[in-house]
C-alpha cells in the first residue's frame, strides 16, 4: 500500500480507541460524582472508568508508535500534526494553572473578615519558604537542563548519552516528588484548613500531579531512546515531552514566588 501512495499524508485506519476513551471518561465522571455523594457502586464505576481510560491510553499510544516508528507513516508533514497539537494542549494547561494562581491571588490580595482580614489567615501554620520549598525549587529546572542535554545528545546522534540524560531527568523528577511528599507530610496545615489550605493545596497538588505526568512522559521517552526509536530527524514524542517538562518547571518558579514566598510570609 505504502509504495503506491503518492502523497505524504497519513490516512488513519478506523480505530475503537476514541469511543472507548469517551466511554471511560463518562464512567469516570459519573462514578466520581457517585463516589463523592452517598451512592452505592460509585467506587466500582469510578475504578472501571479509570481502568478503561488507562487501557485506552496504553493501546492508543501503542498504535501511534507502531504507525510512526515501525510503519513509517509519520512523514515530515504528518509530524506537524502532533507538533501543532502540543501547542494548544500546553496553552490550555497554562490557562488551567493560571486559574489556580488566580484563586490564590483573589483570596489573598483582599483577605475577608472571616479569616481575620489577613493573609495567611489568622491562626494558620504556614511553611517556611526558605526550607523545603526553596530546596525543591531548583530541582525541576535542573531536571529541565538534563532534558535539554538529552535533546542535544539526540540531535548529535549520541544515543547512549541521551539515555543517561533522560535517566538524570527522571531521577531529579522523582527526588522533587519525594520532597513534595515530605513537605505535605510536615506541613502544619492541610487542604481542610481555610481558604489558604484550599488554594495552596490545589495549586501545589495539581503542579505535583503534572510533575508525575511529566515524569512518566520522560520515562517513556527514555525507554524509547534506549530501544532506538528516536533519531536525529524524528523525535516528535521526545520534543513534546521536553516542552511539557519546561512548562512544568516554569510553573514551579511561579509557584514558589507567588504561593510559597509572597503568600506564605
Amino acid at each position, binding site marked *: 500500500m505504502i509504495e503506491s501512495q503518492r502523497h505524504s499524508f497519513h490516512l488513519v485506519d478506523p480505530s475503537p480507541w476514541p469511543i472507548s476513551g469517551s466511554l471511560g471518561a463518562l464512567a469516570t465522571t459519573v462514578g466520581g460524582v457517585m463516589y463523592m455523594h452517598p451512592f452505592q457502586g460509585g467506587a466500582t464505576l469510578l475504578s472501571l472508568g479509570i481502568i478503561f481510560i488507562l487501557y485506552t491510553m496504553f493501546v492508543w499510544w501503542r498504535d501511534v508508535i507502531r504507525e510512526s516508528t515501525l510503519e513509517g507513516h509519520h512523514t*515530515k508533514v504528518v509530524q506537524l500534526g502532533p507538533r501543532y497539537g502540543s501547542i494548544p494542549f500546553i496553552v490550555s494547561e497554562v490557562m488551567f494553572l493560571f486559574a489556580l494562581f488566580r484563586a490564590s491571588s483573589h483570596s489573598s490580595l483582599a483577605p475577608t473578615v472571616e479569616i481575620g482580614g489577613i493573609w495567611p489567615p489568622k491562626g494558620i*501554620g504556614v511553611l517556611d519558604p526558605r*526550607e523545603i520549598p526553596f*530546596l525543591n525549587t*531548583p530541582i525541576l529546572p*535542573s*531536571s529541565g537542563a538534563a532534558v535539554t542535554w538529552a535533546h*542535544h545528545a539526540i540531535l548529535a546522534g549520541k544515543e547512549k548519552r541521551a539515555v543517561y540524560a533522560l535517566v538524570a531527568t527522571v531521577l531529579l523528577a522523582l527526588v522533587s516528588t519525594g520532597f513534595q511528599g515530605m513537605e505535605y507530610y*510536615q506541613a502544619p496545615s492541610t487542604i481542610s484548613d481555610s481558604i489558604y489550605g484550599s488554594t495552596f493545596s490545589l495549586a501545589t497538588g495539581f503542579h505535583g500531579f503534572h510533575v508525575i505526568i511529566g515524569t512518566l512522559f520522560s520515562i517513556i521517552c527514555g525507554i524509547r531512546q534506549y530501544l532506538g526509536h528516536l533519531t536525529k530527524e524524528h523525535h516528535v514524542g521526545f520534543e513534546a515531552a521536553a516542552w511539557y517538562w519546561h512548562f512544568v518547571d516554569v510553573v514551579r518558579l511561579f509557584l514558589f514566588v507567588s504561593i510559597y514566598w509572597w503568600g506564605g510570609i
Partner: protein
Amino acid sequence: MAMAMVRSGLRTALRSRTPAAAPKRNYSSSAGHDDARETAKWEKITYLGIATCTVLAVVNLSKGHPHHEEPPRYDYLHIRNKEFPWGPDGLFETKQHH
C-alpha cells in the same frame, strides 16, 4: 515578440528560482550550533544543578524539621462537612495523632 521574450525570461527566472534541494529544517536548538558541543555544555549545567541541589538538601535536612504549635480552634480550620470515604483523617493529617 517582446511579450514572448519577457515571458520566456520570466519562465527561466522562475525555473532557476525553484530550489534544487529543499532547505534543511532548522530546529530551534540546533540553529548555528554544534550539537556535540551543546551536549557537553548542557551536561555540565546539569551536573552543576545536581551539585547545587545536593548542597541545598544537605543544609536543609541537617537542620531538622520545625515543630508547629497547635492553632486555636477557629471554625475555618480543620473543616469537616462530611466524612472522608477512608476515615476521619485527611490524607496528610495522620501526624496530628503523634
